[in-house]
């Protein structure tokens, strides 16, 4: 049998990607193996010669990193997905908040903390910081943050009522019944949340390109959209 295509993907893509790859396997009879971890770890592993065929990062920085280390097959990189950044609250306090300049976030926190992913390291945190700066709330809340290891942990803090508000991806908020989206940050308030995909330099598996093509194709769309991602149109991919 042919060797499987090995995909190194950001952990947050698991649900969508599992479904998409299953569909691809059914269609082509080929198999793929998914290795989910933090984008950072995956990038470094690919740099170190990991047997990955595809790298699906959760942000551009780590894809850039891999590219800079010449770990990608030139010309295969493209942006696949886009995500939105939302403000969430526990479901028992679902008052909507207008995310516009002049926002009094500190007041809305009421002495509590704003749960975000790490604003220096984790993509969702970095985007969140940018968005807060745009709406002029950053300087007010920067000492009122509860920075989590990742978006899921930030979500958890809000879900458990530890934090009255939190910033997460729309994809995370959608699926959790214990939180409500109380506002969506305007797309232009932060760098676009983009999930790029590329074939690695080391890849020798001819099916890698096939899977890459499938993930970029229209039939794969449904799987991503079902999880709340926005699929980037072919024209905007590079």
């Amino acid at each position, binding site marked *: 049998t042919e060797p499987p295509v090995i995909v190194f993907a950001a952990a947050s893509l698991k649900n969508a990607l599992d479904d998409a790859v299953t569909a691809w396997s059914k269609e082509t009879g080929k198999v793929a193996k998914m290795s989910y971890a933090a984008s950072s770890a995956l990038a470094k592993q690919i740099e170190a010669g990991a047997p990955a065929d595809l790298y699906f990062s959760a942000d551009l*920085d780590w894809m850039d990193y891999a590219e800079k280390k010449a770990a990608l097959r030139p010309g295969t990189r493209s942006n696949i997905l886009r995500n939105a950044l939302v403000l969430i609250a526990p479901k028992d306090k679902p008052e909507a908040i207008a995310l516009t300049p002049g926002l009094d976030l500190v007041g809305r926190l009421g002495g509590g*903390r704003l749960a975000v992913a790490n604003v220096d*390291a984790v993509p969702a945190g970095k985007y969140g910081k940018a968005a807060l700066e745009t709406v002029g709330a950053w300087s007010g809340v920067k000492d009122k*943050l509860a920075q989590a290891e990742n978006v899921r942990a930030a979500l958890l*803090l809000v879900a458990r009522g530890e934090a009255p508000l939190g910033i997460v991806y729309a994809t995370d908020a959608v699926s959790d019944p214990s939180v409500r989206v109380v506002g969506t940050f305007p797309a232009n308030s932060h760098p676009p949340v983009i999930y790029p995909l590329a074939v690695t330099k080391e890849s020798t598996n001819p099916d890698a390109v096939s899977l890459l093509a499938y993930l970029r194709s229209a039939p794969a769309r449904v799987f991503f959209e079902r999880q709340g991602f926005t699929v980037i149109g072919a024209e905007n991919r590079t």
Partner: protein
Amino acid sequence: MATAVTAWLGLMPDEVTAIWLSIKVASVATLASLGPGLGIAYLLARKRFPGRALLDGLVYLPLILPPVVTGYLLLLAFGRRGPIGSVLAEFGIVLSFRWTGAALACAIMGFPLMVRAMRLSIEAVDRRLEQAAATLGARPLAVFLTVTLPLSLPGILAGAVLAFAKAMGEFGATITFVSNIPGETQTLPSAIYTLTQVPGGEAGALRLTLISVVIALAAVLASEILARRLAHRIAGDR
């Protein structure tokens, strides 16, 4: 002096804070778990009671569970809405987002290591000496304090150092439970982790790692010297 050193190491104020906080958290976690650790180690080493196997297993749990899960469970139990956390809150004790919560997380993560070392040492204490002490009029508690405890000091020391070292390296449970708030819950490992998640953060991560290693090794060394003195006193020259 301290400032000179930090300047020379090129440390940011946040990092200096993280270092001190780490030392504080690790010390408090270690000291606070000494009592319960000893108690449970003694029970496991010397008593037969119903539920002993359960207690034994329970102590191992934090070792077996992925740290994130432990952090998650801590959040469930000690969070603002958790069964224990809500009770504690009534007494004005809040752990979430506090350094005390970080200490709790570290204490729990180090607990299996501490208890196991202590237990081994207690088991190695010659019961005939305890008996001799009893015939001389020492009540069980007095026997424990004057015979069992001093004779198992090497193990207690080893357990404490293991717990301290673990606390200096722990961040999975900590960050999940109490997040990553500079000056409050951002310990050295959290800071290091953050740096590893940023492209190009390796140098910074390495620097902080070295600092944490130096601190923990100093503790290890100190405990070794102490242990050797103890052993020397007990074994004499023979």
